[in-house]
């Protein structure tokens, strides 16, 4: 175990997988000479050279498609979107190409590609740069989606994503890159897709969440502890495949659920989890599932407005109190 940052964890995952399999290469804006806009690919150009760490023009649609083409003929591209906000320009290639090729060709072509980059808000980047897009990606069959919240998960899941034979959308967080955590040194430390992680055991209420929000939920849980509320935190880690068993296990245990996500509410991930819970654990719910999301608006720039718009520990606590029928 070493304590490293989320950024370093991703860097290790990339380096190890590139070392392990020469079909793996990294392509995107500023990933090479500049070492990555967020320095995730630091040192990789020097180590692997220009064929395997490729700086692209600012043409998201184009290089995403180049990646899909390369994947069709057996390479394993890791395509970095500087952020997933810009990936919208490439969504045709993600949704109409990557997600459908295997099926349309009756399995003749695989698409082992990873589309990675930060998703969601950082600090005061305003509307076009602050979108958490998990819901949209997860909607399309043919894709797999991961949202690691910690350095260990980032490393283990990225390695799994690169080894997976399907297109995987990998969603990181600008505000997570500098976060430190313990990560196994083992070169073969891989976290399989579809396995949730109970980040905190609890008995009164289940807070189910993914990605960056795990940390907001942890703060909330610690505060609630003081008021004698024991909150369990289930981090889904991947949204497709989804660890439904882990969700149900926690619901059976607490009978009260809050779903917390960074994105917008309308058809957010939480809505889908609510649907699964009411369908498969209807009689176990002592209260409606409550949801915490970002405000249902484009993200504003002003510091205070942005703060109000983002999910906060306070709002998570309010939601927990609601499902616990406690009102303060």
């Amino acid at each position, binding site marked *: 175990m070493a304590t490293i940052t989320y950024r370093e964890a991703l860097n290790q995952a990339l380096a190890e997988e590139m070392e392990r399999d020469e079909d793996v290469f990294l392509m995107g804006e500023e990933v090479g000479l500049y070492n990555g806009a967020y320095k995730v690919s630091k040192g990789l150009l020097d180590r692997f050279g220009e064929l395997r760490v490729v700086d692209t023009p600012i043409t998201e649609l184009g290089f995403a498609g180049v990646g899909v083409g390369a994947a069709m003929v057996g390479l394993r591209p890791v395509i970095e979107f500087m952020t997933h906000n810009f990936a919208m320009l490439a969504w045709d290639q993600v949704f*109409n190409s990557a997600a459908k090729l295997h099926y349309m060709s009756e399995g003749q072509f695989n698409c082992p590609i990873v589309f990675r980059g930060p998703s969601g808000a950082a600090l005061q980047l305003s509307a076009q740069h602050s979108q958490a897009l998990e819901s949209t990606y997860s909607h399309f069959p043919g894709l797999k989606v991961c949202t690691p919240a910690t350095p260990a998960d980032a490393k283990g899941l990225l390695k799994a994503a690169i080894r997976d034979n399907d297109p995987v959308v990998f969603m990181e967080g600008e505000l997570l890159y500098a976060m430190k955590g313990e990560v196994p040194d083992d070169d073969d430390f891989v976290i399989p897709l579809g396995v949730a992680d109970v980040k905190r055991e609890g008995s009164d209420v289940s807070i189910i969440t993914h990605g960056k929000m795990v940390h907001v939920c942890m703060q909330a849980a610690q505060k609630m502890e003081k008021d004698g509320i024991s909150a369990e935190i289930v981090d889904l880690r991947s949204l497709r495949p989804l*660890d439904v068993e882990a969700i149900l296990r926690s619901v059976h245990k607490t009978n009260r659920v809050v779903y917390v996500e960074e994105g917008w509410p309308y058809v957010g991930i939480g809505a889908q989890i609510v649907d699964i819970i009411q369908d498969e654990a209807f009689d176990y719910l002592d209260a409606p599932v409550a949801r915490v999301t970002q405000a249902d608006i484009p993200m504003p720039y002003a510091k205070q407005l942005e703060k109000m718009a983002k999910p906060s520990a306070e709002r998570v606590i309010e939601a927990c109190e609601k499902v616990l029928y406690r009102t303060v």
Partner: protein
Amino acid sequence: MAKTKSAAGSDRDEQPSRNGQPGRSGKADGGQSSDEQASKEQPEPSGGNAPAKESNGKLDGLGRERLQEMLYQMLLGRRFEEKTAEAYAIGKIGGFCHLYIGQEAVTVGAFEPLRPDDYVISAYREHVQALVKGIPPRNVMAELYGRADGCSGGKGGSMHLYSAEHNFMGGWGIVGGQVPLATGYGWAIKYRGEDRVALCFMGEAAVNQGAFHESLNMAALWKLPVIFIVENNRFGMGTAWERASSLYDISQKASAYDMPAAVADGMDVLNMRKVVKEAVDRARTEKTPTLIEARCYRFMGHSMSDPVHGVYRTKEEVEEHKELDPIRRFIDQLKEASLLTEDELQAIDKRVHEEVDDAGEFADNSPEPTEEALYSNVYASEDVAGRLYFDGRRQS
């Protein structure tokens, strides 16, 4: 090596209709750009005039057998599409269906210089390209019928024919969407240090799509062995090219990327082959991409639901272009050069008819995909923990 064309694209003054006329000018200058100014400045890679019979009894270095094989491919394409039209009319084929009739010379000429390991991707008007790349007519027809023996298991249909075995990377339903993919094949070839090439076909209307421009820039910047062949059949659905592009001359667009370019007469299989061969050779050796405009014409409607002529073109215009039928033209060339006898022609025709009929029968008898097929091949790796499907019908 070819220089990038450099005319100011000022052929806007000329009548696009004249300019866009395939065959006419095309045949005359054997693939010269019809923009005289430009062609004076620098000859097109294709160069030369109409093929002359060589002492060794070859045309453009192609022997009798090869030439007749090309004729066979053109006829196969033509008859296959006619059969497809019939089958569609009686409901054996569904969905959208875009026929290639009139454009056979583009594909047969372009494929002649290829090796089996070269990649080809196209758009949705790709039946004939799938056949010429080597997919058996049976499996192509079965796919159109939506049967289990189809080259895409019945899941793709007319717009999505695939064969990994033949490096046929697909038809494509999104206009321009295949261009970045082809660039990706070029990237993989470079990555692995191979000497394959990738051919990317598209209709002229795809040239306006951003994906085309983003791809050409990367192909030129990274020196990828990709040949972009624009089939300028004059129309994107009901929109004439001159109503969709501010510049008629498509090959000129390569100058924005410092990429070699050429114009080919898409109604002349030998000229088409000559122009593409030069680009293919250059791609194998120098790893440079090329943009080729193949001037051709669509004899049928855009799709089965679009009349042959109507609001956007007259009966006369269509008839006039049918005069340039690339198959009749090639037959004449071969006979003139006494490289084809009437008996040989009959034999080829017979062979083609038999194959096409056989393809239809095979498709008729091929089974429908089973219910199990519904959820097969959605994902390549289903051995994951957790749930992949959320419709409650198929839980992984």
